[in-house]
């Protein structure tokens, strides 16, 4: 600030007379950030062009396929309905899918609560948090469907394997979210309780969890929203029941587009409702942190 005051008193001249003093612009530095952005964008562009040029289109006539798809979409969205599936039956199937998502979220949240505590840097020693972080990264890197298929070897294809597989990903997502919520907790609160002689569990249950419960619930709901989409997949690809299975049958076996339409509409309706609630939850997290 002092610098600014000095400069001011030294330049009591109108703009016009300054022209001579600035004869040349200093050279403009190229920042690391710009280099990285440009490099990344060019790599992506080249990769994309190469990938598109070598994309195997299965020998279908593209124009024909595109217009067929448009025609299909028209039937799907304009004439939903179907012989195999009444509206109520379809609704019940969606409820089953919601049930799968709920179970996976609940189990995931329960396990993540403990791992989240161990992963929070203000609550656990560094070696422990590192182990948790590595575990989370590994679980996340395996696609959900593969977790499910791996568990299906011992549990058999179906709801049980599907829920356990989805639980794994929920644990990794929620552990990260929870421990970050715990880390946001005011350090002084923990200090005050420590000073009063409370032990670790007392601090956790009396201070840490109560004061972050709003975040925990919000994050859990966000995961529930994602798990709904995952649960649809489980029906289609892992033999679990629910609306995903009906979708798989309708489009893969009966080729009944009108039924696909009914199912798509129902999934869409529930997904949008869940998303609307999730956005509110997310704004709540954001507002509180701002």
């Amino acid at each position, binding site marked *: 600030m002092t*610098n*600014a005051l000095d400069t*001011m008193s030294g330049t009591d001249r109108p*703009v016009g007379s300054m022209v001579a003093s600035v004869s040349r612009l200093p050279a403009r530095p190229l920042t690391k950030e710009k280099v990285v952005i440009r490099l990344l964008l060019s790599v992506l562009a080249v990769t994309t062009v190469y990938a598109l040029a070598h994309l195997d289109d299965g020998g279908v006539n593209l124009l024909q396929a595109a217009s067929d798809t448009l025609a299909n979409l028209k039937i799907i969205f304009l004439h939903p309905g179907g012989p195999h599936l009444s509206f109520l039956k379809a609704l019940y199937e969606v409820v089953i899918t919601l049930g799968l998502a709920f179970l996976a979220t609940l189990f995931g949240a329960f396990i993540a609560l403990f791992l989240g505590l161990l992963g929070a840097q203000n609550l656990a020693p560094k070696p422990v948090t590192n182990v948790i972080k590595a575990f989370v990264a590994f679980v996340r890197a395996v696609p959900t469907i593969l977790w499910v298929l791996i568990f299906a070897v011992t549990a058999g294809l179906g709801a049980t394997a599907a829920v356990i597989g989805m639980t794994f990903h929920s644990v990794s997502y929620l552990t990260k979210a929870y421990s970050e919520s715990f880390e946001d907790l005011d350090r002084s609160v923990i200090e005050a309780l420590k000073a009063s002689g409370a032990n670790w569990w007392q601090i956790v249950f009396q201070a840490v969890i109560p004061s972050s419960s709003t975040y925990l619930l919000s994050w859990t709901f966000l995961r529930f929203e994602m798990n709904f989409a995952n649960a649809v997949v489980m029906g289609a690809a892992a033999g679990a029941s629910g609306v995903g299975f009906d979708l798989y049958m309708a489009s893969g076996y009966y080729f009944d587009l009108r039924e696909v339409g009914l199912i798509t509409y129902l999934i869409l309706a529930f997904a949008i409702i869940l998303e609307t609630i999730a956005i509110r939850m997310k704004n709540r997290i954001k507002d509180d942190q701002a």
Partner: protein
Amino acid sequence: MTQISQLPGAPLLEVSHVMKNYDGTRPALDDISFSIGKGEFVAVIGPSGAGKSTLLRCINRMIDVSDGEVRFEGVSVSQLNRRDLKKVRSKIGMIFQHYNLVERLTVIENVLHGRLGSKSTLSGALGRYSRDEKRQAMELISMLGLAEHVYQRCDRLSGGQKQRVGIARALVQDPKVILCDEPIASLDPNASKVIMEQLKRFSNEMHISLIVNLHQVDVALRYSDRILGVNKGRIVFDGRPSELSPERIAEIYGTELSAPRVRYAS
């Protein structure tokens, strides 16, 4: 109400009977009229929510008025089409409480943004500036004491430095008027002093009129030629700083309890 009669020069900006309703309840601006001459330094004071910000934004039509008229250099701003409005805006600078810079760009890039209103769409969009424009920007940057930060990203600057970038961006427009919306509300006292003195200097030397929203009465008293007191969307005081008695301040701020502490410097 004391009206100032002797204006320095012809009115540059005339605001007459301006009304602004947001949602049909209490109007945000209620029959506002005043005019401003060349080189005048006008402070607008009043409690928060009085309509100061709305008033400022009605002048360059960032907000459309519900009724009444704003005339800039004799042209009615509310009648203009988009193209002509942009032309008028290019002659009116604006400075914001939160600086409103593109934080990730460098100081000079932000300053040059002030030229965009006077450029063709194509060269503006591509960010191609002439040598003269760059030179002018450099001069202003050094005048404001930011010479060594020309190529620094704005998110690395202090609040006071950012506001000086904001001032340079307004000045590079060659404006007739600069509208300042709480320019020092986010700054510490030292930086505030620098900013206010620089504004005062440009007003004097380059004969630019300033309309400055402030919530510190003492700052308004020290720097302005004229003070407008606004309360509940109405102008309740219009006069010289010397005419602003504690009673008038209390009137502007509603009750005596909520009146800010005032330090009488002179």
